[in-house]
């Protein structure tokens, strides 16, 4: 720096005279420039210098030496001296005393999570053993394992206590959800949906419309909880996301099947009433019981029935693929409720109360819409011939009994007594979902 003629004020920082203290560390910048990687090298070198310590930077470039003070100030450090050297300039940078990141220091490198056969890193293995501890509601958008930087305006998460949301096998379920994704445009033999007669196709269109209508509720319920789950409970975030994505595809496939034959169905008011009560529930565990265990559980039997009695391969394929996803959702629900009942003995009356409260809201519903029952029957009989209709009607009656039996079985698996399970099953919405 040429300063001939300047009148340097002795009270201002004069960088021409190097700090007499020995530098704590030395760095040879070689031919690196600011903007070309030197700042990365400087940051790494300064990390090893204690606050207030001095890093001596050797650079062959006069331009770099002239630019370093501006960089240092911006980065919270200070150039305290510079001197010509045989091969360029030596600039002394004193490390600033303020913390670069307002957080605890990073822990030492630890043991990495285990890999499974073939080098796979599974979600169930990434945190290592047992459910997580309660997460800090104010930890903000901190990924699993990350140290959150302190700040005052962090997003606060309503669902931070694992007891409110956790299921012990949620990691495995997330893994399955990823592995079992499918494509509703390409994996269904859509051309097969164009061949049915008017009567059968109209019945299929109504059943598919009913399914699609219900799947909207199955999507919106987890979607409403999703932005409330603390990122520290990452498995839950992934799980609910996969659930929402599954339901989006169910909506897609059943809507496509409803449209694929050219008929239209009704979106029924009774279904609407039943679904709106699902969205009213703001407690995660209550919602899981109502949606995953009771609603989607009942739908498992319905989807299996449709797959077996489908009049065309497109309808069968749609029901089969949706059934595979719904099994995961029901598994999660049973697992979560079982954990909740086992760890919080006083939760059972609250769960019963939630089912009762919903049933009270649905008091005006006397049963599954006749239109849906008729459509299921015609879809199965594929005709209006009396003898064939009788068989199909018997199959549909049998389905209702199967649904009731399996609901009780699932509720028992959750940890309810057989008596309570029967009571809750009876209270469940006649709309099925």
């Amino acid at each position, binding site marked *: 720096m*040429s300063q001939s003629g*300047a009148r340097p004020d002795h009270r201002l920082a004069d960088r021409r005279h190097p700090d007499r203290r020995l530098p704590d560390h030395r760095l040879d910048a070689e031919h690196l420039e600011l903007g070309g990687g030197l700042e990365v090298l400087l940051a790494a070198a300064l990390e090893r210098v204690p606050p207030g310590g001095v890093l001596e930077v050797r650079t062959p470039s006069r331009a770099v030496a002239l630019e370093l003070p501006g960089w240092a100030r911006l980065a919270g450090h200070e150039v305290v001296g510079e001197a010509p050297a045989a091969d360029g300039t030596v600039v002394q940078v004193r490390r600033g005393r303020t913390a670069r990141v307002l957080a605890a220091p990073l822990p030492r490198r630890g043991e990495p999570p285990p890999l499974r056969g073939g080098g796979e890193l599974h979600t169930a293995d990434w945190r290592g053993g047992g459910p997580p501890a309660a997460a800090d509601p104010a930890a903000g958008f901190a990924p699993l394992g990350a140290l959150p930087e302190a*700040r005052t305006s962090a997003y606060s998460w309503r669902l931070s206590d694992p007891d409110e949301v956790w299921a012990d096998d949620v990691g495995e379920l997330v893994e399955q959800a990823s592995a079992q994704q499918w494509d509703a445009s390409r994996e269904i033999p859509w051309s097969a949906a164009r061949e049915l007669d008017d009567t059968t196709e109209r019945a299929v269109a109504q059943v598919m419309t009913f399914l699609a209508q219900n799947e909207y509720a199955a999507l919106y319920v987890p979607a409403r909880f999703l932005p409330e789950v603390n990122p520290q409970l990452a498995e839950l975030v992934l799980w609910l996301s996969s659930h929402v994505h599954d339901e989006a595809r169910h909506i897609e496939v059943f809507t496509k099947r409803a449209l694929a034959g050219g008929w239209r169905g009704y979106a029924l008011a009774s279904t609407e009433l039943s679904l709106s009560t699902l969205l009213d529930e703001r407690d995660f565990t209550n919602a899981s019981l109502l949606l995953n265990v009771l609603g989607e559980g009942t739908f498992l039997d319905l989807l299996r029935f449709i797959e077996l009695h489908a009049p065309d391969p497109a309808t069968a394929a749609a029901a089969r693929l949706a059934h595979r996803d719904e099994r995961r959702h029901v598994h999660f629900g049973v697992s979560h409720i079982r954990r909740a009942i086992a760890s919080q003995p006083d939760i059972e009356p609250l769960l019963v109360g939630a089912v009762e409260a919903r049933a009270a809201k649905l008091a005006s519903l006397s049963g599954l819409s006749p239109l849906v029952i008729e459509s299921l029957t015609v879809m199965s009989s594929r005709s209006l011939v009396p003898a064939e209709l009788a068989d199909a009607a018997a199959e549909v009656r049998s389905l209702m009994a199967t649904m009731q039996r399996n609901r009780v079985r699932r509720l028992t698996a959750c940890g309810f007594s057989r008596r309570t399970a029967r009571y809750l099953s009876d209270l469940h919405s006649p709309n099925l979902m």
Partner: protein
Amino acid sequence: MSGAELRLGAVSYHPRVVTVWERFRTYFADRGVPTDYILYSNYERLVEGVLDGSVEIGWNTNTAFVRLDHEVGGQTRILGMRDVDLDWSTVLVTRKDRPLDGVADLAGRVLALGSRDSGHAAILPLHYLAQEGLDAGTQCGLIRFDTDIGKHGDTGDSELHVVRAVSEGNADAGVLSAAYFSAFRADGVPQVADLEVSWRSPPYYHCNFTVLETFDLELGERWSQALLAMDYDDESLRPAMELEGVRRWHPGGQAGYESLRDAMREQGLLS
């Protein structure tokens, strides 16, 4: 606003000024020296505001401070300044592929300057270059980017124009603050990649909190103590301090304004 509140004037060179002073206002109240802020659109109005008593404290640029101090015959006091204000400097930048062989080599070339009321991007560079033996006004072709007149270069806008002019070859060299040049580099402003620093001015002081000499000594002392106690490692203060570009406040002083005082006199800016 109660009568006991101090009134501090600042210039609204960017919307973030509101964010900064909303936080600092709460901070000063918590420290027992309640301070409200009043925003001006330019530093000339702020200086008038300090002179006519509309505000007691002015958050001044160096140019505004020198003018205010001149108006009252040196009867001002400084209550504090940022760490960065203590060693502000100006850099001369050139294209890497068109290097400059010293300041004298600028003669006959085109020099880009920031806003004419900016201490760091116009007034001081001309002064320091003159000390190096170059009368840029007569020996160079000057391009001035007067894009933020009244803000004294606070916006950085005119300095961005300087950088672009040099990068695009419309000027052979340009002057701007080292702080803005480094910030442009850190922000990845593409034109900066072509440029290097060819010269750097001696250090000088930049902004400060100014009061008139008549301001209550004890109150000024308490206000300074509160200012200096701001902690960058306090998570509730860091965002505002980052926006203000300060990590630590200093008591400051008058020493670093001599060069600007000289420069403004030379350039007829102090009447």
